[in-house]
C-alpha cells in the first residue's frame, strides 16, 4: 500500500509521472482517446473538439492568471487576434493552415505583450481594468477594420489539408485537436517545473520579494503574457478553422469571463485544473441545451428559461467555487484520490 508522499530529492519531486500507477492510467487514457473517434457519434466528437480548444485556451489563461497572478479580462481578444491572423493569412496570403498556426500564436503573443506592458506599472485592480479596455478595443478593431477583417460578415476559411487529405468533418479535425492539446498540455506541464515556471509562481506570491531574489519582473511578466496569449492565439486559430468562419461575435467579453470561470472552477495554478475546468464548463452549456430539448418535448413553451440559465449557472459556479472551494476541481480530485489511497486510515 502506498501511503504518504515521501520524496528524497528534488528531481523526484519535480517528476511529471510520480508513480507507475500514473503512467499506467495515463496510457490507458491515451488508448481511450485514440479509439474514441471510432466509437463516438458526430455530436460527441463536436463536443470533444470544443473541449480541446477550451483546454488550450484555459491553459494559456491559467499560466497568466493562475501561475503568474496577472488578471486578464481580455483573453477572448487574444483568442480573436489569433483567429483573425490565421484566417487572414489563409484567405489573403494563401498560407496553408499549418503555416498560419505559429503566426497566429506569435501575433497573439505580440498583442498580449503590448497589453502586458501596463502590468509593469499597474497591477491587481488596475491591470484588470486595462485588460478589460483591451477587450473592447480589440472587439472594436475586429468590427471596424473592415478592409482586413470584413467586419460583421466575417471571413470564410477553407478546411486544413495535408496534400490531398482534407480535414473537414468533426472526426478528421479531432486528430488535429488531439495533437495540439497533447502538445500544449505537455509543454505547459514542463514549463511550470522549469526556472520560468518557478519565477511565475514567485511573482504571483509576492512580486517585490521575487524581484529582490533576482527575478527580472519585466522579462517574466511579459513572458507570461506572451505565452498565455500564444496559447490563446492557437486555440482561436484552431477553433475558427473548425467552425470554418470567423466573425467578431465569436469573441465577446462573455467568452473572457467563461475562460476565467474555467480556471476558477478547475483550479487556479494547476494544469490539471485547467483541463478539468475546460471540460466542465464546455459540458454545462451542452447539458443545458440537451435539457431544453427535453423540456421542449414534454412541456413546450417553457424552453425559453434555458437561454439565460447558462449565465446564471456560470455566475453561480464562479461565486460558489470562490467562496467554498477556491482551489477548484483539481483540489476536489486530489482529496478523492487521497481518500481512496489512504482508505481506511485516512488520518
Amino acid at each position, binding site marked *: 500500500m502506498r501511503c504518504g508522499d515521501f520524496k528524497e530529492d528534488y528531481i523526484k519531486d519535480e517528476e511529471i509521472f510520480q508513480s507507475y500507477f500514473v503512467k499506467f492510467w495515463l496510457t490507458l487514457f491515451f488508448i481511450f482517446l485514440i479509439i474514441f473517434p471510432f466509437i463516438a457519434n458526430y455530436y460527441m466528437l463536436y463536443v470533444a473538439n470544443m473541449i480541446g480548444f477550451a483546454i488550450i485556451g484555459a491553459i494559456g489563461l491559467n499560466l497568466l492568471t493562475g501561475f503568474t*497572478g496577472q*488578471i486578464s479580462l481580455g483573453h477572448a481578444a487574444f483568442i480573436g487576434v489569433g483567429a483573425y491572423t490565421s484566417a487572414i493569412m489563409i484567405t489573403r496570403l494563401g498560407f496553408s493552415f499549418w503555416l498560419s498556426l505559429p503566426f497566429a500564436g506569435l501575433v497573439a503573443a505580440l498583442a498580449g505583450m503590448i497589453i502586458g506592458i501596463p502590468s509593469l506599472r499597474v497591477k491587481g*485592480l488596475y491591470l484588470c481594468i486595462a485588460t478589460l479596455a483591451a477587450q473592447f478595443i480589440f472587439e*472594436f478593431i475586429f468590427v471596424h477594420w473592415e478592409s482586413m477583417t470584413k467586419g460583421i460578415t466575417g471571413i470564410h476559411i477553407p478546411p486544413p489539408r495535408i496534400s490531398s487529405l482534407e480535414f473537414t468533418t468533426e472526426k478528421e479535425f479531432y486528430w488535429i485537436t488531439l495533437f495540439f492539446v497533447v502538445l500544449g498540455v505537455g509543454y505547459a506541464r514542463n514549463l511550470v517545473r522549469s526556472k520560468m515556471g518557478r519565477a511565475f509562481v514567485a511573482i504571483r506570491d509576492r512580486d517585490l520579494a521575487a524581484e529582490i531574489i533576482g527575478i527580472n519582473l519585466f522579462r517574466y511578466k511579459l513572458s507570461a503574457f506572451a505565452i498565455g496569449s500564444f496559447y490563446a492565439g492557437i486555440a482561436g486559430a484552431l477553433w475558427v478553422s473548425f467552425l470554418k468562419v470567423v466573425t467578431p461575435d465569436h469573441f465577446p467579453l462573455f467568452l473572457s469571463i467563461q475562460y476565467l*470561470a474555467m480556471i476558477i472552477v478547475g483550479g*487556479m495554478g494547476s494544469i490539471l485544473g485547467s483541463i478539468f475546468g475546460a471540460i466542465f464548463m464546455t459540458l454545462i452549456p451542452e447539458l443545458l441545451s440537451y435539457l431544453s430539448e427535453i423540456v421542449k418535448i414534454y412541456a413546450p413553451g417553457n424552453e425559453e428559461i434555458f437561454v439565460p440559465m447558462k449565465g*446564471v449557472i456560470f*455566475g453561480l459556479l464562479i461565486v460558489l467555487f470562490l467562496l467554498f472551494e477556491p482551489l477548484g476541481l483539481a483540489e476536489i480530485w486530489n482529496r478523492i484520490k487521497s481518500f481512496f489511497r489512504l482508505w481506511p486510515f485516512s488520518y
Partner: protein
Amino acid sequence: MDILLQVIVTGLAAGGVYGLIALGFVLIYKATSVLNLAMGEFMTLGAFICFTALMQLSAPFYLAFILTLFLAFALGFVIERLILRPLIGEPIISVIMVTIGLGVILKGVMYMIWTPSFRSFPEIFPPEPLNLGFSMVPSGLLWGFIFAIIGTIIFLLIFKFSRTGVAMRATANDQQAALSMGISVRWIFALAWSFGAMASFIGGIVIGNITGISVYMGDVALKVLAVIILGGLDSIGGAILGGFIVAILENLTGLYIDPLVGGGTKEVAPFFILVIILMIRPYGLFGKETIERV
C-alpha cells in the same frame, strides 16, 4: 461652431449621468477597496424595479423612487453579507471575479423575470427640453444632470459632516485604527455597499429614462470605469468631474473621428482614454497616490 457647442452641452449633461454611476463605484471602493464590476447590473435592476413599481403597481413616481431606494439598501446589505464578507483578506482576483460572477447571475435572473425585450420608461420628468439660447438640452439628460449634482452634494455632505461619513472615511484610511477607535468596520462595509447600490439604482432610473430599459443597458457601466480611473478611484468630486470630461471627449470623438473611420468610435473612445490614463497617471486626477511600482 453651433454644433460644437451643442456637443459640449450634451456631453456635460450626459457627464452628469456618468458621474452618478461613477459615484456608485467610488462609494463602494472608498470604504471597502472593492471594485464592483456588477455595477451595470445593479443599475439595470434599479431601473427595472422602479419600472415595475410604476407600471404594475401604478405607484406615483416618488413612492416608486423610495421603494427602489429601499430595495437598493437591502440588496447592498445582503450582497455584502453573503458574498463579499467571506472574501475579506482573499487575493484581489477572487474579489474581482466574485463581482463579475454576481453580475452574470443578476443579468440572467433579470432576463428570466423581465425577458430581454426593450421597453421605454413611462414619462416621469417634464418632457420639454431646456433652451439655453445657443443650444438645447434634452429633458432626460437635464434631469440626469440635476440628479447627479444633488446626489453628489448629498453624499459629499454625508462624508464631510455626519458621524457615519466620518467613520467611513476613517475605515477607508486605516481599517485597524478605525476598529480600535470603536468603529464597527463590518457595519461600515455593509453601509458602503448599500450606498453604492442606491447611487447606481438612481443612475439606472435616470439612464432608463433617457435610453429606455433592457437587460443589456448595464453595459454602459463598463464605460464608466474610464470615468472613475480618470477622476481617481476614491474621489467623489473626481467621479463627477471625470464624468463630464469623459462624456465630452466621447461626444467630440463621435463628432470628429467617426467620419474618418466609419462610425462606432463613441463606444470605444472611453476605453482608449482609460488605457492612456493608466499609462500616464494610474491614480487619476484626484486619487490617492498609493500604487506601488515595481
